[in-house]
């Protein structure tokens, strides 16, 4: 069997190396390359399309403005198949390309976790969108987050509900996946810090077909405000419809998915008048507005946070390299950390030593299907 293994290994090495060498030879030095790990297949393939579009818009903008270090920028993408092993392979494949000076990682926290050891080994900056707070506390100096982490979303939801809406009987609904569970912990923590204990917390598994038991539990607990963390839009759509059908009409402040385009399309009127925390809100700043116009021009749909963070990531990476004046990873990292007050589509970036760029959220409201900016809440810590 070892014959097979050896043939297999060396054949593999040769087969994979050949095209890489060819590509390297023709393109060496002509452009600056960014690598992007993005889901093209699998359950998150849809989000992947948006993420690529956001990056592309930023890319065009950077190149039109003269590129990076005087060279045009190019983005190389790899499919992560919406799985963790897929993300690891996709990243390590990009990492073998020595021309790539920085990476755009994933919006899924578990994928960033999976890729983190390879990112550390590659030792080049990687911008990512996963919101698990622990990611920037791994001691991995190359991770830079382009979205506010979940500890902020939880605090913002709590702050908005308690201070703006003045409501105290909280119900929380969350997906039991990584995103939803962390979000729930952050929200419950923020509420408890303000001396409020949620009256009911309900988790659900992704791809549930029915939420009647969840809704009835909320109803029985007599909540007057609902906080939620939904991962997939179809779950959100089913839940929203059943919530309203079964007569729960309490104000609802949801995690970012509540205002994304697909959710609006799927849930329709069931989401009217809900609030959402949004790392991206079109009316929150002129930069956000500019991005929205560019995005609509290209994709013919409204932008959301799936695309805005990759837009910022590419801009930030380009800015940091330009600021450093070279592509040396250490220099780029230092340049990135020194960036202050960078105005992106998502908000104002001030990277802290952990690599967290944003420290607050927008709150928006769904007014009959239109997303209207309500308030920005920023934290100093």
């Amino acid at each position: 069997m070892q014959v097979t293994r050896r043939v297999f290994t060396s054949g593999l090495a040769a087969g994979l190396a050949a095209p890489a060498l060819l590509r390297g030879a023709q393109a060496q030095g002509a452009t600056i390359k960014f690598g992007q790990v993005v889901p093209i297949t699998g359950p998150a393939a849809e989000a992947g399309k948006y993420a690529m579009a956001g990056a592309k818009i930023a890319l065009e903008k950077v190149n039109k403005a003269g590129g990076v270090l005087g060279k045009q920028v190019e983005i190389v993408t790899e499919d992560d198949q919406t799985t963790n092993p897929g993300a690891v392979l996709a990243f390590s494949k990009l990492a073998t390309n020595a021309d790539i000076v920085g990476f755009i990682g994933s919006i899924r926290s578990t994928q960033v976790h999976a890729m983190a050891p390879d990112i550390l080994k590659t030792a080049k900056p990687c911008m990512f969108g996963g919101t698990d707070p622990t990611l920037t506390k791994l001691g991995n100096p190359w991770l830079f987050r382009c979205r506010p982490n979940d500890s902020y979303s939880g605090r913002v939801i709590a702050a908005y509900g308690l201070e703006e809406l003045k409501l105290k009987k909280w119900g929380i609904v969350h997906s039991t996946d990584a995103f939803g569970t962390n979000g729930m912990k952050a929200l419950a923590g923020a509420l408890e810090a303000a001396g409020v204990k949620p009256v009911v917390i309900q988790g659900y598994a992704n791809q549930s077909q029915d939420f009647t038991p969840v809704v009835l539990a909320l109803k029985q607990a007599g909540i007057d405000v609902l906080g939620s963390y939904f991962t997939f839009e179809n779950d959100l759509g089913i839940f929203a419809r059943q919530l309203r059908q079964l007569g729960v009409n309490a104000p609802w402040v949801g995690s970012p998915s509540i205002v994304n385009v697909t959710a609006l399309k799927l849930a329709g009127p069931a989401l009217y008048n809900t609030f959402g925390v949004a790392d991206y809100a079109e009316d929150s700043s002129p930069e956000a507005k500019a991005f929205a116009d560019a995005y609509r021009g290209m994709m013919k749909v409204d932008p959301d946070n799936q695309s805005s963070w990759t837009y910022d990531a590419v801009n930030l990476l380009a800015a940091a390299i330009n600021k450093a004046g070279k592509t040396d990873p250490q220099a780029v990292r230092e340049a990135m950390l020194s960036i202050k007050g960078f105005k992106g589509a998502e908000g104002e970036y001030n990277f802290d030593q952990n690599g967290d760029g944003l420290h607050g959220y927008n709150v928006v409201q769904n007014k009959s299907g239109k997303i209207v900016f309500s308030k920005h809440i920023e934290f100093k810590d």
Partner: protein
Amino acid sequence: MDLVLQLLFTGIGIGSVYALVALGFVLIFRATNVVNFAQGEFSMVAAFLMVIFAVDLGWPYWLSALLSLGGMAVYGVIFNLGVYYPLRHRTYLPVIISTIGASILVTNTMLALYGPQPQVLAPVFETPGFNIGPVYLDSQYLLIIAVTIVLVAFQYWFFEHTLLGKKLQATSQDKEMASLLGIPVAAMIMITFVYSALIGGLAGILVAPILFVSIQMGGTIALKAFAATIIGGFGDVAGAIIGGLALGVIETFGAAYVSVPYKDGFAFLVLVLFLVFRPQGLFGERVAEKA
């Protein structure tokens, strides 16, 4: 009590969907002795056809439904010829793998053709539902329950009161003897696949307005329908219906009174208990004792 009634309604509604898909499983299993791991994709494909006809082309709902079901009939024929028929003389294992391959193929073809976004299909009725006392009845679920009842009645009439139904039964019980009587066995199996694709497709069309149309919708439902089939007994049509309804109700009440995140776990726990203590299902399968 209100709570119980509300849960019961939802449980029966979702259980009806499981029952319809389970019915498709059972029919194919009885005719070919094979578990079709691509059964859920019947529902998914039909729902996508509905989106194409009713949403994209904007054709009337009834016409779109007819065309989608027509498409499913064709799909059933292709499925039989491509996935089952060439392997009919082999053991169950290659056929299982082949149906798994078909499931991957169809799911991803749909993704390639139609993109990854979940699609919205409007419900049949304008009114989303109404209250009877404290219980809210979703009109789409009511429709699903009604269609399930009609289909069960039709199924009963078709298998018990038509010659074709009898020939199908004969084929599933003893193919060689059926051929000796002049019953065209290959055609009977073809009809079974087409009928199964139609039932699965109908389930898909009905449930699409509730669960939305996505490439994963088939797999999620099929896994539960599987469990329903085991609970009801693999050889039994009535068992599939009751198994599906039972599963829907168990799941809903389990979620309400025990744990929501483990909702899917109840289905499989019940399944394991059945497999270990009553593998022949609720009603029992006549298993001849053989050397």
